[in-house]
C-alpha cells in the first residue's frame, strides 16, 4: 500500500469506527448505569468522523471549516451549559432545528453543484437527486417545526393549539405543492427553471413545518420534538445517500429509527395516538369537556400550617411533582421538605408520572439536580398500589396526571391516559398557583373531592412556608 492509498483509506476507517461508536453509544444511553459514558462514546465517534473527513480527497478550505466550527461551538457550548434544566426541552428542540437547517443547506448546496451535470433520467441521477429532494423537505420541516416548538415551550408563541379554518386542506395542498415542485425540478420545461422549483420546494416545506406544529398544544410538544428529532435523523440519512457518505447514512438512520421508537413509547406513556397528536383533536375535546366541568362544586382551601401538621404526623407521604414545581424552580425546596419529614420519621416517596414535567423523564432529571436520592423516585406502576396506604399525597403543580377523569369519564380528552392514583390516598393536598385548569385545559375532579384540600400559591412560596411550619412543629 502506498502512502497515498493509506491516507485515502483513513476517512473510511474513521467512518466505520465512528458508526460502531454511535451504535454502542446509543446502546449505553438506554441504560441508566452506562448512559453518561454512552453519550461520551457517541461524542468521540463524532470527533473521529469529523477528523476523518479532513483527510478526504479534494478537500480544501480547511481554515474556513475550522473557523465555522469555532463559530458554531461557542454559542452551542454556552447555551447548553447555561440553560436551566427546566428549559431543556426547548433547547433540545432548538439544536434539533439547527441540524435540520444544516441538512437543508447541504442539500441545496449539493443540488447547485449537481444540477448542471445531470441531464436526462439515469440511475446515477435518480440516486443523487431523489435523496437530495428528500433532504430539502425533511431538513426544512425539522428546521421550522423545531423553531415553532422552541417558541411554544419558551413562551414566544402561544402554547394553545392555534387553529384556523381549512387547516388540514391547506396542509394537504402544501404537501401536494411539494410533490409537484419536486417533480418539476426533475423534469423542467422551458417555462419553469429547475432552480425555481427547488426554491419553491424549500419554501413550501419550510411553511409546512410551521403550519404543522402551530396547531399542536404545548402539552404534546415532547412528542412533536421526538418526531422532529427522527425527521432530522432521516434528513441526515438521505443527505448521506446523496453524498454517498456511509457515516451519515448510518448515524442518521439510527437516529431516525430510534427516534421513531421513542416517539411511540412516549405516546404510549401518554395514551395518545400519534395521529391524534399530529393531526390534532385535543382542542375540540377540551372545549366539550369544559361544558361538562364541575363549576358548581367548591374547592376547599388549607393553610401551610395545617398541611405541616398533617404531613409531619403522617406515617407515609407521597409527593407528586409536576411541571408547576419545575417552573417555580422549587425542586430543592421539595427535597428539603422530604428531608424534614424523614427526620420526623415520616416515610416519603415521590410518584413520578412518565410524562411529569414536559418530557418523559424530565422530572427525574430535575429532582436528581436537587440531590433527591434516585431510589425514592418511583414509577407510576410501582407507586400506584401504595397510594391506599399513604396518609397524605402532596400534589405540587401537577394536574392532568392525577385527573381521575382519565379513569372514569369516557368523554374526557384524556380518558384512558394512565394516571397516578392520588385520589386513593387518605388525604390529598394540592399546591397550585390558581384555580385555573391545567396544561390541557381540562377540569380536574380531584380538586373538588371531599378528601382534597387546596393550598393556593406559587410552588416555591408555598413550599417555603410549608418547610418553615414543619421546622416549627
Amino acid at each position, binding site marked *: 500500500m502506498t502512502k497515498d492509498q493509506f491516507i485515502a483509506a483513513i476517512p473510511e476507517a474513521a467512518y466505520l469506527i465512528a458508526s460502531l461508536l454511535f451504535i454502542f453509544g446509543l446502546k449505553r*444511553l438506554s441504560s441508566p448505569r452506562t448512559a453518561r459514558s454512552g453519550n461520551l462514546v457517541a461524542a468521540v465517534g463524532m470527533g473521529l468522523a469529523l477528523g476523518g473527513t479532513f483527510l478526504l480527497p479534494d478537500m480544501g478550505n480547511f481554515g474556513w471549516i475550522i473557523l465555522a466550527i469555532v463559530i458554531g461551538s461557542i454559542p452551542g457550548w454556552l447555551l447548553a451549559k447555561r440553560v436551566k434544566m427546566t428549559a431543556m426541552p426547548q433547547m433540545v428542540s432548538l439544536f434539533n432545528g439547527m441540524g435540520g437547517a444544516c441538512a437543508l443547506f447541504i442539500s441545496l448546496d449539493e443540488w447547485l453543484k449537481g444540477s448542471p451535470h445531470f441531464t436526462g433520467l439515469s440511475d446515477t441521477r435518480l440516486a443523487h437527486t431523489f435523496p437530495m429532494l428528500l433532504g430539502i423537505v425533511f431538513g426544512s420541516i425539522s428546521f421550522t417545526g423545531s423553531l415553532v416548538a422552541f417558541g411554544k415551550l419558551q413562551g414566544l408563541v402561544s402554547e394553545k393549539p392555534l387553529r384556523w379554518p381549512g387547516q388540514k386542506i391547506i396542509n394537504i395542498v402544501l404537501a401536494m405543492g411539494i410533490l409537484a415542485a419536486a417533480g418539476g425540478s426533475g423534469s423542467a420545461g422551458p417555462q419553469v427553471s429547475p432552480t425555481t422549483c427547488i426554491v419553491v420546494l424549500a419554501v413550501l416545506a419550510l411553511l409546512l413545518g410551521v403550519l404543522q406544529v402551530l396547531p399542536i398544544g404545548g402539552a404534546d410538544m415532547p412528542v412533536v420534538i421526538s418526531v422532529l428529532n427522527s425527521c432530522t435523523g432521516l434528513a441526515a440519512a438521505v443527505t448521506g445517500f446523496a453524498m454517498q457518505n456511509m457515516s451519515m447514512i448510518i448515524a442518521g438512520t439510527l437516529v431516525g429509527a430510534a427516534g421513531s421508537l421513542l416517539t411511540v413509547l412516549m405516546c404510549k406513556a401518554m395514551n395518545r395516538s400519534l395521529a391524534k397528536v399530529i393531526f390534532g383533536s385535543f382542542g375540540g375535546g377540551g372545549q366539550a369537556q369544559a361544558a361538562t366541568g364541575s363549576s358548581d362544586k367548591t374547592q376547599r382551601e388549607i393553610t401551610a400550617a395545617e398541611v405541616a401538621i398533617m404531613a409531619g404526623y403522617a406515617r407515609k407521604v407521597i409527593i407528586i411533582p409536576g411541571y408547576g414545581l419545575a417552573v417555580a424552580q422549587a425542586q430543592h425546596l421539595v427535597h428539603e421538605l422530604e428531608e424534614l419529614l424523614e427526620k420526623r420519621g415520616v416515610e416519603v416517596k415521590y410518584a413520578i408520572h412518565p410524562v411529569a414535567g414536559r418530557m418523559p423523564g424530565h422530572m427525574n432529571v430535575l429532582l436528581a439536580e436537587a440531590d433527591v436520592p434516585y431510589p425514592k423516585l418511583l414509577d407510576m406502576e410501582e407507586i400506584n398500589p401504595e397510594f391506599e396506604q399513604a396518609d397524605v399525597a402532596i400534589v405540587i403543580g401537577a394536574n392532568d396526571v392525577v385527573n381521575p377523569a382519565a379513569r372514569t369519564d369516557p368523554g374526557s380528552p384524556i380518558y384512558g391516559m394512565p394516571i397516578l392514583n392520588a385520589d386513593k390516598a387518605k388525604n390529598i393536598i394540592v399546591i397550585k398557583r390558581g384555580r385555573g385548569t391545567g396544561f390541557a385545559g381540562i377540569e380536574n375532579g380531584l380538586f373538588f373531592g371531599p378528601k382534597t384540600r387546596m393550598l393556593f400559591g406559587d410552588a416555591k412560596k408555598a413550599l417555603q412556608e410549608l418547610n418553615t411550619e414543619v421546622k416549627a412543629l
Partner: protein
Amino acid sequence: MSMSSLAMIYIFILAIFTGVEVISRVPTVLHTPLMSGANAIHGIVLIGGAIVLGRAGDNGVLFALGFIAVILGTLNVVGGFVVTDRMLEMFKAKPTAKKEDAK
C-alpha cells in the same frame, strides 16, 4: 469512493433495525436524555457540511451555503452532546453518593 445505491439501501435497512433494537429496552426515566443524545448524533450532518465547504473551491454560493451548514451542524453537535451530558451528570453520581448518608 462510490457505492452502489443498492448497497446503501441495504445499510439503510439494517441501520433501521439496529436503531430500534439498541434502544428497545430503555426505561422511561431515560427518554429525555436518550432523545437528547440521539439529537446530538444526527449532528453527523456536520460531516456533510464540512465536505461541502471543503470542496466548494472558489464558488461563492457553494462556499456560503457550506459555511452556514458547518456552523449549524456544529451547534447541533456541540449543544446536543453538552446538554445531554449535563442531564446525565445529575443522574449518575448522586444516587450512589446519597444512598449511604440516607441510610
